């Protein structure tokens, strides 16, 4: 009897720990629709900077784009009230892998088109492709987070 209640207390503490560790990953306000669009614009801008500019102008423009990215991360952290650290929970693994593969594919195709066809077409591909990849990832992420929140309730 005593060992049963002891076991339940230990299990309750471990459950609380799991709930707390997942919270930064799954507790978040809905991502605004413009978020994916903004990533697309950023990617198109990056393609144009790499394809059209040279030397110091290119370096400055790249630096500005990196700063914009940092600004987005800071804004996202403030919006969420927290920022997850470490390995994502295993439930998110395939969504992250698909997003990374999608981003690599978009970058590869945009680079090839930029070399063979036109920088402007490459920028369009980078923009639309990144928008699609990020939008799909956000959609998948939100669905997984909702399932996990439900499980932890």
């Amino acid at each position, binding site marked *: 009897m005593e060992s049963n209640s002891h076991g339940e207390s230990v299990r309750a503490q471990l459950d609380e720990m799991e709930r707390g560790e997942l919270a*930064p990953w799954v507790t978040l306000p809905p991502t605004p629709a413009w978020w994916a669009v903004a990533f697309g614009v950023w990617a198109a801008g990056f393609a144009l900077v790499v394809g059209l500019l040279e030397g110091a102008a290119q370096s400055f423009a790249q630096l500005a784009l990196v700063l914009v990215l940092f600004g987005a991360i800071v804004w996202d952290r*403030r919006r969420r009230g927290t920022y997850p650290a470490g390995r994502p929970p295993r439930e998110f693994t395939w969504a992250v892998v698909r997003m990374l593969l999608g981003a690599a594919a978009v970058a590869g195709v945009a680079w090839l088109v930029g070399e063979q066809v036109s920088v402007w077409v490459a920028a369009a591909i980078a923009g639309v492709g990144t928008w699609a990849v990020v939008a799909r990832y956000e959609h998948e992420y939100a669905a997984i987070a909702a399932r996990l929140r439900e499980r932890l309730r």
Partner: protein
Amino acid sequence: MTQTPSALDGLDPLLNAPKRLAIMAVLAASTTTDFAFLREHLGVSDSDLSKQAAALEAAGYLTITKSGRGRGSVTAYKATKLGRRSYQQHRATLRGLLHD
């Protein structure tokens, strides 16, 4: 006389309190976390959260930073190395107890 090690040695008395344990669980999985997020997650009052966080800060388990003024001010919490280590040890001990 030497004491034999006990299975309970890794348990941290400070983390036996559910609210403090929940705070450290969130902080262990985040870079920093705001006051409002923790308050919502724990479902506690402002004063209760402040009290629990102060106890963890006094033990060196977390740091508290305040930025801004007035309505836009933000209080953020971050787990220290010591806090993370103690939390991980506490969790490992609990898991060990469950499997014994």
